[in-house]
């Protein structure tokens, strides 16, 4: 007696292949190609904003002391009008590429652009 007909075998192989393909993302992790501005205050991520054509222009008030503000426009992000001494955070200018980082030290606020899998794990500077 034959356990499988040819068509049964094809169905079984197809099920296995589809299942393995479905498992791949959870085994190797996703690969986010969209740029995302990750905003942290005191080490905690408070906002993740995708930077694409549909992202609306906005200025976000961060819950920090001193007060700090982040502007998002044209797929870019920067600190603006922060109430820290020296306004060093504003000198970073617009961030638009993966890995670009701006920090407001007094407010303990960090903005970093995340994107495709980076070529570099860490920058020695």
């Amino acid at each position: 007696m034959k356990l499988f007909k040819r068509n049964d075998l094809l169905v079984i192989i197809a099920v296995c292949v589809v299942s393995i393909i479905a498992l791949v993302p959870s085994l190797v992790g996703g690969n986010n190609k969209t740029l995302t501005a990750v905003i942290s205050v005191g080490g905690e991520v408070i906002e993740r904003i995708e930077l694409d054509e549909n992202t609306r222009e906005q200025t976000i008030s961060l819950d920090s002391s001193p007060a700090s503000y982040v502007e998002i426009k044209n797929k870019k992000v920067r600190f603006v009008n922060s109430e820290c001494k020296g306004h060093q955070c504003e000198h970073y200018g617009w961030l638009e590429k993966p890995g670009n980082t701006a920090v407001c030290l007094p407010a303990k606020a960090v903005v970093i652009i995340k994107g495709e899998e980076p070529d570099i794990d860490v920058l020695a500077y």
Partner: protein
Amino acid sequence: MTENAKKRGRFFFIFSVVIFCALVLILIIWDAVKPDEIEKNNVVMGTYASFNIKGKKPDEAYSKIYSEINALENKISWRIESSEISKINTLLSCETDNYIYNYIDTCIGVSKSSSGAFDISLGALSDIWGFSDNEPVLPDAKSIKNVVNKYGWEKIVCKDRRVTVPEGVKLDLGAVGKGIACDKASSVLDGANAKSAIISIGGSILLWGKETFTVGIADPSNSSAAMGTIKLSDCFISTSGSYQKNFTDESGTLYHHILDPSTGYSASSGLLSVTVICNSGLLSDALSTACFVLGYENSLELLKEYNAQAIFITQDNELICTDELKGQVNIINDIYTENAR
């Protein structure tokens, strides 16, 4: 339906269920064994720090590292009145805890080996340059001369856990503070269920665990980008460069924060940056400063003594690596070339 067709159908059903269960089991096991990963961006010791930790309960490891670093800052920052360093600077003689004593003693060792190119007694010099407050100014020559005559690592006396300095000497561990913080982080990770970690505190880096990472070497002409990359694991990395904390005067002369203790002015040894790789955060910080002041040729003995490797970038845009790193930097920005000497 024939008997054979029924059997085939039942076998097909059981086979599918077994495959499905096996896949679910794989997912459950994978979820149980795969390391969790956290990435935190924060401000510690007055600088930007990133913490990327993989392993079991990485949040716990991060919290412990964060509190250890804050405790460290409270002990070694001259800005904090109650710190051990402030007490020494104020009282001029003070008993310290073992850790602080060892940090100072190790720093003095590097000072001695580098003929004073690295010196933790320069606090007053940094003050008059305004680098301590991130508001740099060019001091007049007389002020610099006055300060230069007062400091000097050989004037620091360490004995029986007591540190004594003469009046006019202000200890400043700022050049090694972030490296010591990386040492602290490494100790925490040693006792945690971590698998691997990258910790960067103001540019002082800890690569912890067996995983190999791609490290970018900052481009002196654009320090937010890399001029090249190198694969490294399980080490501490520190970079000193003239592209940070600098200013130009009216004549266009560039002044930067790495001060040459012998002159009191910004170090000028033909380098744009030095990246040091070794097995201690404190030492990688101290050695990168010392090597920047000494220049390539004069650094080689010092690096050998501490079993450290380094990547030098010269003002001619040449990359010079010590023996173990030769040919390992993948240059991205082609204005730089590796000198094979």
